[in-house]
């Protein structure tokens, strides 16, 4: 698996360049033209990224999530679900690095092959950081009226999280 993911990118780049040469495209000039567009793209997304990183990080600093957990603990105990997974599920749509850090903690405390370790792995793999993706993609083209994009994205996350619980239970429970 590792070899495949290591070889995919070099082959892909090779293929694009050979195909370009074959079709008599000025490969070098095209690269420069695209790279320049990329630089402008980075320029456009810079304010969005600074804004989101700032808001998400001070939110994490405040440990508000830990505060909510206190309220939810009895409910989780009742349903016999591991409470330690909850911060990860709550943070998954907001911050990819934060949920990854929690997964790492879970691996350290319970081991990757425990039920909760497998659940965390599935959660991390099953969805992307919705709020970050929305802010980044819409911010890059200055779209401010995102209409129903966020509710649909969060709905998909919720279904993914529920599915992760159910599927992990079926496979490893």
């Amino acid at each position: 698996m590792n070899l495949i993911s290591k070889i995919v990118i070099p082959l892909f780049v090779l293929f694009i360049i050979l195909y370009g040469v074959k079709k008599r495209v000025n490969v070098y000039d095209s690269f420069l033209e695209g790279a320049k567009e990329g630089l402008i793209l980075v320029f456009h997304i810079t304010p969005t990224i600074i804004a989101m990183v700032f808001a998400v990080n001070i939110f994490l600093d405040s440990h508000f999530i830990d505060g909510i957990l206190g309220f939810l603990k009895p409910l989780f105990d009742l349903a016999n679900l591991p409470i330690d997974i909850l911060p990860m599920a709550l943070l998954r749509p907001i911050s990819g690095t934060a949920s990854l850090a929690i997964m790492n903690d879970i691996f350290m405390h319970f081991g990757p092959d425990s039920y909760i370790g497998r659940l965390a792995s599935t959660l991390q793999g099953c969805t992307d950081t919705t709020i970050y993706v929305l802010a980044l993609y819409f911010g890059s083209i200055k779209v401010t009226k995102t209409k129903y994009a966020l509710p649909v994205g969060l709905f998909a996350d919720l279904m993914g999280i529920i599915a992760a619980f159910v599927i992990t239970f079926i496979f490893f429970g």
Partner: protein
Amino acid sequence: MVNVIWVLLILIAIIYSLFTGEVETINNGILTHATSGVNLILEMMPLIVLWTGIMKIAEKSGLLHVFARALNPLLRRLFPSLPRNHKALGYIASNIGANMLGLGSAATPFGLKAMDELQKDNPKKTEATEAMITFLVLNTGGVTLIPTTVIALRIMHGSANPTEIIITSILATAVSSMSGLVLDYFIRRRKRL
């Protein structure tokens, strides 16, 4: 909407920390987190510039069209509002492909470029189009087939079977993406009636 989330995150953080006496952490955060943002951009910039450069070659040689045609049966159903030869479709196809292979760093530049192409024929520049929203739903669902980071971390922590979660991840992703796309489809259809 992102606007609301942004305000909420900051409001909750500052007000909650006032109550719990963690103001100092927040104070430090306000002063240092802009740097984290800039660092993230500096990390992404070389990859974005590199990939948009390489993909320009693919665009000029017509290879992007080939990608789009390969995924055409899927794309036509997902993006009925786009004409068959729309430039964005090639980038969307590349983005989906890169995501599936777990190449997130390559997927983002393709995705940004796709949004850029979609924006070019958007009549109202500040409003999201249907195609943009469908594309984002697809992306936030994260159609990952091989969660490379998770597997790497499992190996690091000595898992006996680091890849056993691939199947559960794929199933959960499928549920997440499908439910997002179905909801998106119904919203689009209701608007047209």
